């Protein structure tokens, strides 16, 4: 059997899960009534928050990335690693950390109260943008850092020698190439963000389309309206993705960030301030979670442990599925596979969930399929990231060993078993770690389907927060972070042990 054949079926499956569920939803949509003013407000807010989040993330990332590119200092490696952490961090946990620091009754709130200032209001647009910047600034910084490190050292030497303005001559072109792609990537991520809007948004002026879908389904049981909103959400994402397709999306997963480039411009103090500010911005909320969580561990009800077990099971199933799907896609060249590899980025998880909800509802009670559907949707959402890790690795393997494999007649399953999989172990481990961590921390589709008995750990934590059991929620947060990062570390470590052979 040809190695590229399964990819065709996988591509078909992904089209079905993203476009097919959209179709199921479209059939139920009540377009007669059109959009209410509240719905238009949701659309405006969605686009506005995504735009601002992407803008601030990218703009603030520039000085941080530049500072990291040209300064070498003890602990630099840790800072660069820290930049990778928010991607893996469960959204609920980060939001809790931000609330602890920036919330009305948080640390900043106490400082403001002490100074006689009105308390900061983290709910609404400001909070949503803040949380999105927290997640995406590091991503943007990594993308730009790679861009900076890609400029050959000789050019900086030449510029210094000639006294040429480094910014205009070297950095400008690089930024012009990378910034649009980075901006669009983050814009796309923020368009479909749900958990942040769920906790920090809400209310007529701070509702995203995704949140409106959730409300329509969960509180009003209005399938028709949810369907219409789902169509709009897909339209927004497709428009953004179409824009992004023309621009090469930058790869933030790459390594090689531990070099610095010797430069003769810029102020060391300013750079140090930017790096310190970025590190603090990321570390303080994380520390807040850790501190509160330690105290809260004892206050957790037994339901938390059951939820943790469910989350682990879902994460493992989702990871296995994601790896199979991504590998099949990565093994196949061609437009169908490439499109299937990015389509889930444009799809909203709640839209997919809504579609599945519609399909399942006549036959089974949604609550009974909550966990399998969550595993499926989580796998779907991780596929684009996994494919972007596996594809370049596969290309490299084929370039180095393909000819020998051809000459020895190694094709199909034999090629996979003897050549490809052994050499893919490191990227597979990393991709599996990503998938596991993302699934573990996911708060999305599960909110639509789960009753009281099927909660995953993030949902349980959200419910604890909602009933003001903040200490118990903090404990759950610490448990969730530990499990998420733990799973990532286990898979990634497994992948990297291959080099020891």
């Amino acid at each position, binding site marked *: 059997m040809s190695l590229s054949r399964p990819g065709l079926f996988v591509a078909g499956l992904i089209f079905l899960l993203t476009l097919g569920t959209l179709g199921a939803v479209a059939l139920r949509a009540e377009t007669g009534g059109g959009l209410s003013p509240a719905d238009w407000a949701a659309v405006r807010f969605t686009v506005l928050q995504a735009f601002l989040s992407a803008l601030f993330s990218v703009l603030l990332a520039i000085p941080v990335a530049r500072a990291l590119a040209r300064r070498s200092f003890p602990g630099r490696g840790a800072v660069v690693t820290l930049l990778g952490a928010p991607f893996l961090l469960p959204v609920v946990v980060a939001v809790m950390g931000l609330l602890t620091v920036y919330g009305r009754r948080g640390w900043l709130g106490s400082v403001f109260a002490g100074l006689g200032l009105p308390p900061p209001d983290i709910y609404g647009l400001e909070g949503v943008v803040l949380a999105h910047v927290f997640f995406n600034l590091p991503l943007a910084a990594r993308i730009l850092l790679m861009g900076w490190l890609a400029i050959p050292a000789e050019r900086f030497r030449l510029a210094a020698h000639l006294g040429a303005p480094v910014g205009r001559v070297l950095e400008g072109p690089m930024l012009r190439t990378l910034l649009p792609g980075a901006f669009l990537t983050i814009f796309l991520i923020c368009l479909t963000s749900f958990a942040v809007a769920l906790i920090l948004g809400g209310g007529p002026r701070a509702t995203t389309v995704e949140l409106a879908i959730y409300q329509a389904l969960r509180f009003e049981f209005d399938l028709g309206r949810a369907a219409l909103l789902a169509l709009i959400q897909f339209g927004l994402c497709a428009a953004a993705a179409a824009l992004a397709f023309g621009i090469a999306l930058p790869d933030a997963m790459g390594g090689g960030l531990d070099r610095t480039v010797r430069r003769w411009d810029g102020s060391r103090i300013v750079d140090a301030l930017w790096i310190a500010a970025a590190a603090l911005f990321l570390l303080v909320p994380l520390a807040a979670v850790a501190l509160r969580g330690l105290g809260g561990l004892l206050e957790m009800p037994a339901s938390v442990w059951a939820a943790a077990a469910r989350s682990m099971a879902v994460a493992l199933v989702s990871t296995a599925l994601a790896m199979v799907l991504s590998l099949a896609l990565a093994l196949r060249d061609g437009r169908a596979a490439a499109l299937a590899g990015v389509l889930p980025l444009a799809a909203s998880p709640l839209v997919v969930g809504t579609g599945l909800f519609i399909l399942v509802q006549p036959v089974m009670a949604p609550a009974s399929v909550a966990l399998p559907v969550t595993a499926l949707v989580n796998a779907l959402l991780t596929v684009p990231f996994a494919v972007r890790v596996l594809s370049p690795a596969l290309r490299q393997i084929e370039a180095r060993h393909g*000819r020998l494999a*051809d000459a020895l007649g190694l094709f199909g399953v034999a090629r996979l078993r003897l050549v490809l999989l052994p050499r893919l172990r490191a990227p597979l481990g990393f991709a599996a770690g990503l998938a596991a961590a993302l699934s573990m921390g996911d708060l999305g589709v599960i909110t639509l389907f789960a009753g009281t008995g099927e909660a995953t750990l993030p949902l349980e934590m959200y419910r604890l927060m909602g009933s003001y059991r903040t200490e118990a929620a903090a404990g759950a947060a610490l448990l969730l972070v530990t499990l998420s990062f733990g799973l990532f570390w286990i898979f990634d470590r497994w992948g990297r042990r291959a080099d020891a052979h």
Partner: protein
Amino acid sequence: MLTLTDLRLAREGFTLAADLSLPPGVTAVIGPSGGGKSTLLDAVGGFLAPVSGRVEVDGRDITALPPAERPVAQLFQDGNLFPHLTLAENVGLGIAASRAAARDPRVAQVLARVGLEGLGDRRPARLSGGQQSRAALARALVQDRPVVLLDEPFSALGPGLKQEMLALAAEVLAAPGRLMLMVTHDPEDARSVADSVVLVADGRATGPFETGALFADPPPALRAYLGD
């Protein structure tokens, strides 16, 4: 036993024509850099489809066959071994597409033949360049095919070791009915090991010429290349 009939090959802005017939033995392919020596080998090995013409081995037309199905064993310039497999497993792949083939008694035999006895369980990274070359040679040997192509597989080894490996290859692969076709950019290699020479220059592959006679009285293209 290897016949190229009206063969025309093309690669980005470069063509090569060949119409020749080679007997068993050791034949060197020499010529200026970029002239098409590796291209010729790629065509025989099945990695380049010709624009027109035929490739035949012992009268059998192999032009349409993929590399693994041709009666040809190949050693490339690099990447002859899989780094994640042991020597025995690498050699075993010449017998069957399975790691278990490493246990076939022929594997130990050929490893001993090339002087790597007892090293079957090592991975390539733990061996010297010379030893890795011998392992690749062992696999070509165990494949037991009538034609063996060598595209300068020993060029990274340094002159003395390269000479040694070429001599070993010629000795080990020598068998009635077998052709060893080796690309080299060093005419000394041709003189020391090859019975006949194919000259690839100016878009044509000509030959075979008897080695001694050719170097005694080189044609103009070869003279230019040798720089005498």
